């Protein structure tokens, strides 16, 4: 692995933070104004035209290294789009709500509990996790089950490195991820019938695959709240909802854990949810996807098996019927 910093950008080239914030706020204002007027008959949104809300900005730079596991040949999705188009239903079910509502999520103090089939239950402080391994720049494609996709420059290290610190027992066949939930901070539960906290899970070999990323940042900075601060996982060959956000606990189990979307719609959201253009979602085809940030006439593209990561992960599913185990 190469150890070293990416080349320094001359400071004259760096957009001053306040100018950048102004740029973001202006774009957000315009979009808010446009969407407000589009919902012209919805008076409740009119107020935002006159006083746009400022979303929480993470801003803190992270020291990162290059990674051989990064994806090349893709155009990165803009920071603006990655941080303002989110599915984070605890903060509201509309795509623009997490950026507006996630400001109340306090990311310090933060711990991750290790429970279940391990030698010894442990608790890790977030700052200890940040120092466990060098933080890598990993660009991954991100494919939502809703048939849109992004290309995101995440920052983190392989989850396997962390799992090794957890001392799982040989009986541990699955890992469950539990996300933060506090109804006083995440006040939008009434918009859906989901029971919280958000739960996701992986088979042990999926969790130990080097691609599975314990993620702390994006674009070289600490994760914004709406993207799953302060720590999340990213599993790039599965639909995005498998990449649990704002994780507070890992549970090692000998049985497949219940997962939130599988509970909500067992015929729509399988435990595996590998990106697979040959297996349709019951309500839409998964053969194509829309790339976020492209103009509407140029968005559609072909979906790749395992989101293009088949070389690294296909062997995990040898002999499995991926239509039954969707």
């Amino acid at each position: 692995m190469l150890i070293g910093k990416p080349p320094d950008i001359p400071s004259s080239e760096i957009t001053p933070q306040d100018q950048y914030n102004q740029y973001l706020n202006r774009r957000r204002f315009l979009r808010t104004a446009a969407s407000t007027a589009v919902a012209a008959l919805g008076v409740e949104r009119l107020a935002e035209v006159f006083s746009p809300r400022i979303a929480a900005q993470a801003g803190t730079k992270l020291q990162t290294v290059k990674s051989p596991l990064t994806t090349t040949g893709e155009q990165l999705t803009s920071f603006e789009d990655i941080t303002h188009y989110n599915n984070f239903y605890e903060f509201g079910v509309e795509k623009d709500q997490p950026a507006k509502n996630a400001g109340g999520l306090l990311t310090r103090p933060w711990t991750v509990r290790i429970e279940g089939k391990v030698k010894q239950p442990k608790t890790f402080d977030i700052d200890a996790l940040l120092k466990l391994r060098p933080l890598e720049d990993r660009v991954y494609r991100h494919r939502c089950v809703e048939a849109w996709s992004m290309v995101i420059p995440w920052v983190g290290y392989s989850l396997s490195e962390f799992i090794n610190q957890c001392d799982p027992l040989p009986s541990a066949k699955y890992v469950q991820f539990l996300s933060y939930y506090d109804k006083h901070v995440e006040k939008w539960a009434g918009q859906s019938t989901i029971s919280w906290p958000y739960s996701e899970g992986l088979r042990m070999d999926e969790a130990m695959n080097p691609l599975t990323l314990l993620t702390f940042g994006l674009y070289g900075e600490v994760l914004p709240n709406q993207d799953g601060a302060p720590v999340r996982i990213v599993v790039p060959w599965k639909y995005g909802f498998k990449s649990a956000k704002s994780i507070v606990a890992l549970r090692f189990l000998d049985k497949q854990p219940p997962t939130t979307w599988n509970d909500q719609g067992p015929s729509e959201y399988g435990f595996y949810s590998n990106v697979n253009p040959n297996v349709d979602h019951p309500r839409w085809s998964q053969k194509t996807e829309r790339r976020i940030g492209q103009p509407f006439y140029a968005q559609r593209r072909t979906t790749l098996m395992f989101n293009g990561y088949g070389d690294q992960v296909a062997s995990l599913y040898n002999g499995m019927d991926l239509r039954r185990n969707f």
Partner: protein
Amino acid sequence: MKRSTLILLKVFTWLACLWPLGLLLLGAINNNLGADPTATITFATGLATLRLLTISLAITPLRRLSPRLGWLIKFRRLLGLFAFFYATLHLLTYVALYAGFDVNTMATDIAKRRYITAGVAAWLLLLPLAATSTNWAIRKLGGKRWNRLHKLVYLAAVCGVIHYWWQVKPGVLTPMTMTLILAVLLAARPIQAWMQRRKARAA
């Protein structure tokens, strides 16, 4: 009502109805339709359709509240046709940006994806209503037949709301507001008729 007032109200209504389209066009020109412009266009046209349909369905119950609100009927056709206009834009968005004009894709979707079945059904129900919206058609059909045909708008609105429920993820409750408003407006009709009969009997 003064003729000038009516003209003013009509102009305002036209502008209000064209407003969502105007914003979409502006957004398209400036590439400012958000991160997922296809989704933005889809939701904007779909919401406009449902909202205009709902408003047009509010006219008759409102008129029955007072004889002085009779003039509202002059706006019902305008709102209904604009609802059909946005429904057509919504359908064309699907055809162009989701199905890529591919007939096989569309046939499969309509057969297999129940929310698309409901959506296409809603549009097909609105089509004869739009086609018979002209004064000529009203005369040709005669008031009684025309009224019976146009009761299909209730079914179209219900299909539209079902389309919305079947489109969102299981457990998401966003269509609830629209559903409740529509339920009230549909219930208003039999309730008002019942109240009329009671008044007539009491007299």
